[in-house]
């Protein structure tokens, strides 16, 4: 170990692996992964969320899965919980939509209305 800088680099690389153990963060992206979800293709959606969050280094976001949310015909479904905001339910998700949700909703704070269940209902 030649310098504090070297130690810092190791630390920063290693932190990514252990962040999960700090528990759930203030922002949660929950992907429905019951049989209906998986059948409709929720796994690639989950992967896309994970990948995008990691790529952007978003520290306060937890991506997790849950069981059947109930709106099986609208799967894949993803819900976004943020402190101080109402829950947003996104329906008919796919990997590209997932990445847009991260970019626009999580990072910039703008709900992607066209993907929400509200938008679907009023169609």
């Amino acid at each position, binding site marked *: *170990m*030649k*310098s*504090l800088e070297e*130690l810092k680099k*190791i*630390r920063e*690389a*290693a*932190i*990514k*692996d*252990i962040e*999960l*153990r700090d*528990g*759930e*963060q203030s922002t949660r992206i929950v992907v429905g*992964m*019951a049989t209906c979800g998986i059948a409709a293709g929720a796994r690639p959606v*989950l992967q896309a969320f*994970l*990948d995008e969050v*990691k790529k952007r280094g978003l520290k306060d976001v*937890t*991506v*997790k*899965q*849950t*069981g059947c949310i109930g709106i099986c015909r609208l799967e894949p479904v993803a819900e976004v919980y943020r402190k101080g905001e109402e829950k947003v339910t996104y329906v008919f998700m796919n990997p590209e939509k997932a990445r847009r949700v991260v970019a626009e909703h999580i990072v910039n704070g703008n709900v992607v209305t066209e993907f929400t269940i509200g938008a679907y209902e009023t169609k």
Partner: protein
Amino acid sequence: MNIYRSNVLICGGTGCTSSKSDQIQEKMEIKIQELGLEKEVKVIRTGCFGLCEAGPIVVVYPEGAFYSHVKLEDVDTICEEHLLKGRIVSSLLYKGALDENNVMKSVENVNFYKKQKRVALRNCGRINPEDINEYIAYDGYKALGKCLTEMTPEDVINTMKQSGLRGRGGGGFPTGVKWSFAAGNVSDKKYILCNADEGDPGAFMDRSILEGDPHAVIEGMAIAAYAIGADEGFVYIRAEYPIAVERLKIAIEQAKEVGLLGENIFGTDFNFNLHIRLGAGAFVCGEETALIASIEGERGMPRNKPPFPANKGLWGKPTIINNVETLANVAQIIDYGPDWFRSMGTENSPGTKVFALGGKINNTGLVEIPMGTTLREVIYDIGGGIPNGKAFKAVQTGGPSGGCITADYLDTPIDYDTLTELGSMMGSGGMIVMDEDNCMVDIAKFFLDFTVDESCGKCVPCRIGTKRMHELLEKITSGNGTLKDIDRLEELAHSIKASALCGLGQTAPNPVLSTLRYFRNEYEAHVNEKRCPAGVCTDLLQYIITDKCIGCTKCARNCPVNCITGKVKEMHTIDQTKCIKCGACQEACPVDAIIKK
């Protein structure tokens, strides 16, 4: 690089391992592969979570689901339901983690953990101790870097002095002050030693730290070495801790590989090499001068002090010897500052202390609490109280060197000085709880059994004195004692304390003196009435036939010495003078009419 969405932490401490947590891990890893989740779910083997009663323990993040008493049959369920489908398996969760509405509480809010403050144990159960990167991720070795590049050895010693850290092995001597003694000596060679011989029966604080976070100890030793001017260190660890030895070896290797041990650490001219020395089963080698003798290749026997090791220790050189838990606190004190450390605990005993809770208590395991927490809080709030609704009798702190504390003093805040005032001591942290079914004379005899066995034999007071004390206790518990024996016991205890060569002998009489102080009535009952109030000492017990007897004669027919008389369909009696107390009658009785008291 893999992006994991879940971490599964499985306890790999000795306790859970002996309950098959390693097999659970293996099965889980295979199942995860079968389900195709190996790129999403990472399985990590950690150190001790502390809630040993609930083992084997598996914690799943990010939810923080605390699964307890996990069996091999549960692995498939947890993998399929929780890891694959995201549904937490409530039936397998630790009962204390569910609130009144059966909603899962996070681990920190569980009663067992709520009053704890994990400082020395902070990484135990959180990281993989066999991966130095995880230690570094949680700020590991930052403190060492700070010391070597921004602080002088005097700065480091002053920081330790200001923090008020006291030796956690039991002595309670101010660590910073001890270091300054060694630093003040001019010598071509100095040593830093870690006392990992943890000999107290029932104590496993140091074992868990070494199994769960060996790097904390390594970093502490490196900082100490820098402060005192040493370039070499030894960890003297008892051979009965194979998992800890293995993890320590791996940790030292990894630290060497990355250049955190060896030459020119952090690019400075500080060199530090660390070696392991194994103990060989002698309790006395936990005494610092005996430990030093053992490393030197001599028989493990203590010697006179002064000279103290800080002036003349290993191979005659200035040596600092610190306990595992003391060292595990060092890096954090440097990282967060002495004021942070002082913000916890009491004025004279800042910081926290790890205790191994055992005996008649619901939540057996390892707890770490700020000094000043009361005994009542530890036993009832954290420990969950006494099982089976039995009444609390006493709590033994300090192992064979300590004493018992009764219910009257349960509201005593724990620190070095308060416990000593009560006739006990902090010791290394063993805390054994006793209930109404424990005989205090028998407890004193148990501890003396141990110290008599472990006496090195060098000095007369200990070699012969403890043996004589043990014989007196044998006399008393077998119903042959006299009141004079009790007086003799007390006298012997005081003279051994005053004249023994080392801590083993000086403290061996403590359990006797302490039980005499608070439970003299039990000793007197054994002597005057030939009765053991708690019903433990077999020689003083009698088997008695109660009026539940139906006169079936089964007991009389089973008695090997024919001491039971009685007519058919009439109550039988046991001739106590002939009874050999084998219990065969009690076993034979079909109506539970025979009691032991």
